[in-house]
Each structure stands twice: as structure tokens, then as C-alpha cells.
């Protein structure tokens, strides 16, 4: 593992351990009240979900173009992280919605688009797991289609009226509400990078093991 990994992991752990205190110290939001504090974990999870989707898509394209398995390993690691952070987003969101909107789930633009993207990521992992040998390239093709699909999903589900807060909320946050958010974003971003590196490392070591088995087989 690279030298920056352990200090970064410790820093990430400290950030997460301190986050409940930072969030508890933030003032209540006037309209939404206590439950709005879910926002400080829901929003960074959603952003990591999007970042992971982009990393997976770009790595898949590079893998299809060059055939270098390093990109395939990155794509697989990012694919798992899409499912992970997507799950966090899709659970924390409805818990917040239950209080704010009165119902766990609504079929508005962003929720539906997120759910469909998450399902494509799950399909990606299912293909990698059960597709048998040679499924790396197929999965890269699926990831490419999934990435290209995002604007279409978004436009098509935008037909229904959306009750999600508009994207202008984040830039206009006052410091007292903005600080905990950016604190959590940094914690989640650090966690994302660490998890990606860790997962890619597992795949690299597995590739080495497979190569060694092949070498042993050839010798005997």
C-alpha cells in the first residue's frame, strides 16, 4: 500500500468520529427542523455516488479502448462504490422524506433517476460475478451504456413534477449550515479515495495470485 494510505485512513477515521459533534453543533434549519440534519450525510453520499459513476464510466471506456486491465480493476472497484454510496443515498433520502414530505418514496426526477442508475450498477456487479470468464469487456460495455444513459434517464423522468430541493440550495448555504456539509463532504471524499485504493489493491493482488498459479501450472 502507498505511504499516504495509513495516515489518510487515520485522518478519515478521526473526521468520521468527530462528525456527529460537528453536525450536532450546527443550527436547526428553520423550516425543516431536526430531520434536516440527515442532509449532512445524505448529500455527500449522493455526490460520492455520482463521482463513483463517473470514475467507473471513464475507466470502462479506457479499458475498452486500450485493453489495459488496470482500468478494468478501477472500474470494478468504482462499480462496488456506486452500489455502496447509492444504497446510502437511497436509504437516508427516504428517511428524511418521511418527515419532510410525509411519504417514504415519490417518483420525482432525481429519485427515479438515482434508482435506475443504482440498478444499472447492480446489474454491472451481477454480470461481473456471474458472467463467467470474459465478462470484463461485457461489463465495460454495460458501464459505458449506463453512463451514456444518465441524461436520457434524467430528461425522461423530469416529466413528473419534482419536489426535490433545487440545486441552488448548496451554493447559498450560510456558513453555519455550510461548514458541517463541507466537513462531511471532505470526510466522504477521503473515504471514497481510500476505499477505491483498497479495493483496487485486492484485485491487483488477486491478479498476481492468478498469474502465479498459471506459472506453477506451466512448470508442472
Amino acid at each position, binding site marked *: 500500500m502507498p505511504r499516504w494510505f495509513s495516515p489518510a485512513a487515520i485522518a478519515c477515521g478521526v473526521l468520521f468520529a468527530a462528525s456527529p459533534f460537528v453536525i450536532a453543533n450546527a443550527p436547526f434549519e428553520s423550516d425543516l427542523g431536526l430531520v434536516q440534519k440527515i442532509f449532512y450525510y445524505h448529500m455527500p453520499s449522493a455526490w460520492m455516488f455520482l463521482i463513483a459513476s463517473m470514475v467507473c464510466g471513464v475507466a470502462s471506456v479506457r479499458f*475498452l*479502448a486500450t485493453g489495459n486491465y488496470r482500468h478494468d480493476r478501477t472500474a470494478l472497484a468504482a462499480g462496488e462504490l456506486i452500489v455502496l454510496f447509492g444504497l446510502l443515498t437511497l436509504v437516508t433520502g427516504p428517511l428524511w422524506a418521511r418527515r419532510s414530505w410525509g411519504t417514504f418514496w415519490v417518483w420525482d426526477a432525481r429519485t427515479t433517476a438515482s434508482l*435506475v442508475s443504482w*440498478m*444499472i450498477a447492480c*446489474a454491472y456487479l*451481477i*454480470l461481473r460475478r*456471474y*458472467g*463467467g470468464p*470474459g*465478462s470484463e*469487456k*461485457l461489463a*465495460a*460495455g*454495460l458501464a*459505458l*451504456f*449506463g453512463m*451514456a*444513459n444518465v441524461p*436520457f*434517464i434524467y*430528461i*425522461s*423522468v423530469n*416529466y413528473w413534477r419534482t419536489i426535490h430541493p433545487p440545486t441552488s440550495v448548496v451554493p447559498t448555504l450560510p456558513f453555519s449550515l455550510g461548514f458541517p456539509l463541507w466537513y462531511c463532504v471532505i470526510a466522504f471524499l477521503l473515504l471514497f479515495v481510500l476505499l477505491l485504493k483498497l479495493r483496487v489493491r485486492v484485485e491487483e493482488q488477486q491478479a498476481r495470485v492468478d498469474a502465479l498459479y498459471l506459472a506453477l501450472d506451466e512448470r508442472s
Partner: protein
Amino acid sequence: MMRVAWLILRKDLTVEVRSREIAYTTLFFAVSCVLVFAFALVREGRAPEDGAAGILWIAVMFAGNLALGRTFERERQSETLRALLLGPAPRPAVYVGKLLGILALLFGAELVLVPLVALLFQARLLAHPFWLAGILATGTIGFAAVGTLFAAMLIRARSRDVLLPVLLYPVTVPVIIAGVRGTAALLQPELDGGIVRFWLALLVCFDVVFVTLALWTFEPVMTD
């Protein structure tokens, strides 16, 4: 390239005309599907509102899934796809040929399904035939474009029968949404041309983008 695609299409059609296996099974499955929906949803002789549009598209998608699976299973058993890829034919031409074959099958199924759904669900589907044809055509092309690529990709994979719908349905969600909403808009008592044109435009964009992507991806994905 179009000549090769045409040759592949002609080969598929010739095989199909002789055995008619996929055509009959797909058609029968689609009709059974619609009947199951009729038994499940029609109550006291009245169908749910907007039900016809959704049911039509679900039947097309299920039938398409079956047709795709069967078409490429046939190729896999005789290893003909491998022979095609080993030959000097340009890879995109192979894709286009297979796509045209699937489209012919699905359009044929739709010719039967539309009157059947209109009859069983008391929906005035044939009130605006040209708009309906446009939406059905573009939607089917979008679904088949993605489906042909995925089915070809999965030929050598394990669990290919169950993996095809697992991969195909989430990716074709925009097609489902646009197709159903566009068809439902046609069923309204007063036709709102703006809405229908919007969904049609979205479907055309989807088709263009995904056929292009599939043409680009077919070669790297099909080579080892």
C-alpha cells in the same frame, strides 16, 4: 457495409421463414402476456385508465427479450456468429444485420399486438395511426439496438438467459418511459401534439445515440 448487413438479414429471414420457430413462439408469448394482463387488471369489463399503453409496451419488451434470447441462442448453437466474426465482414455490418432481423420480428409482433390490446382494453390506439407508428418504431429501435448488442455480448457468458433482462431492462428505462407516456398521450380524448412530439424527439435522440454507441462498442466487446 449495407450490403453485408442486407445479406445477414436475408440469411436470418430465410432461416426464420423456413422454420418460423421464433416468430410463432414470440407472437404466442406476447399474446399470452396481454391475456394475463387482461385477466389481472380488467375488472367488471373495464380496464384501468392508461393501462393499455403500459401493457402494450410491457408485452413488446417481454416478447423482445424472448426473441433476442432465441435468435442468439440459435447462433451460438451453430457457432455461426463466430464464423461471421472470423470472416472479412466489417463488424458493424454484422450488428446492423442482426438488428434489422430483430426489428422485423418485433414489428411483426406489434402488428398483432396493437389491435389486440385496443380490443381487450377498450383503448382507441388506432385513432392516430401515424403518431402511434412513429412512437412504436422509434421505441422498438431503441430497445432492439441495446438488446442486440447485449444479447450478442452475452453469447459466451454464463447464465446468459437471466443476465439479458437483468442488463437490458434498467438501461432501456428511458425507452419504456417515453414509449408509454407517448402512447398514453395518444389515448387522451384531445390529442396534445406537443407532448407526443416531445416523447418522439426523445426517442429519436435515444435511438441515434445508442445505435452509434452500439456500433462503436460492438467490435471491442466481441473480440477476445
